[in-house]
C-alpha cells in the first residue's frame, strides 16, 4: 500500500503556495498574518510527514519548535497590528508608506 507520507509532502507544498499567494495578494495586514500562519503550518506538515516517513520523532520535535515560533510571532505581530491601527486608523498596508521618499 502506498503510504500517504509522500502525498502529504505535496499537500504541504500546496498549502505553502496558497499561503504565499495570500501574502502577496492581500493588502489587509490581518490577512497577511493569517497567510503567514498557513505557511508556517505547511512547513510543520512537511516536517511531520518527513518524520512519519522514517518513523522518527525528530519531525514532531521540529513541529513543536515551529509552534512556539508561531506563537511568539503572532503575539508580537498582533501588537504591531494594534499599533498600526491606532496610528493610521486602517489596516491597509499601502497606507503605511510614510517612510518612502
Amino acid at each position, binding site marked *: *500500500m*502506498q*503510504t*500517504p*507520507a509522500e*502525498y*502529504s509532502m505535496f*499537500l504541504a507544498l*500546496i*498549502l505553502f503556495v*496558497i*499561503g504565499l*499567494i*495570500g501574502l502577496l*495578494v*492581500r493588502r*489587509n495586514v*490581518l*490577512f497577511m*498574518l*493569517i*497567510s503567514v*500562519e*498557513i505557511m508556517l*503550518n505547511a512547513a*510543520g*506538515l512537511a516536517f*511531520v*510527514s518527513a*518524520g*512519519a516517513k522514517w*518513523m*522518527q*520523532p*525528530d*519531525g*514532531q*520535535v521540529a*513541529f*513543536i*519548535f515551529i*509552534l*512556539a*515560533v*508561531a*506563537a*511568539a*510571532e*503572532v*503575539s*508580537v505581530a*498582533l*501588537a*504591531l*497590528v*494594534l*499599533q498600526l*491601527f491606532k496610528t493610521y486608523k486602517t*489596516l491597509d498596508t499601502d497606507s503605511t508608506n510614510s517612510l518612502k521618499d
Partner: protein
Amino acid sequence: MEVLFYIASVIAIASSVMTITRAHAVHALIYMVVSLLSVAVVFYLLGAPFVAALEVIIYAGAIMVLFIFVVMILNMGSAVEQERKLLKPGMWIIPAVLSLILLVEFLYVFLMMDIGLVNHEPVTPKAVGTSLFSKYLLGVEITALLLMAGIVGAYHLGKREKKVVHRFLKEEGETE
C-alpha cells in the same frame, strides 16, 4: 485508508483557499480553524497523534483566539450590523459541514485503529518527549528565550501610552 487522507487534504486545501479569499476577517478565521483541524486529522493519519492534539489545542485553540481577540479589539464598523452579518446561516454552515466531515473521519479512524487503519507505526508521545529533552534540549532552551522575548515585545508594543501632563499643570488641575 488513503481515501480518508485525500478527504482531509481536499478539505485543508479548500478551506485554506476560502481563508485567503474572504472579505471579512472573522469568516477567514473560521475557515482557518477548519483548515487547521483538517491538518490535524492528516497528522493523526500519518501516525503522529501527539502533534495532532497540539495542533488542535495550541493552533486552533490559542493562536486563532488571539486573532479573534484582536479583531474584537479593532471592532471595525457598527457592532450590531456586524453581528447580524456574522450570524447569517450561509456563513457558518459550510465550515460546520466541513468540520463535521472531519469529526466523522476522525471517529472512524479512532474506533477502527486496531484493524490497522493507521498504516504507519505511530510515533508515541513518549518517544517525542525523550527526543525533545535529550537530543534537542538546547533547542528547548532557545525556544524558552524566544517566548520570553515575545512576551516582552508584545507587552512593550501593546502598552497604552500614558498621556503626558506636565506636573505643574496637573497640580493646578487638581487644586482647582
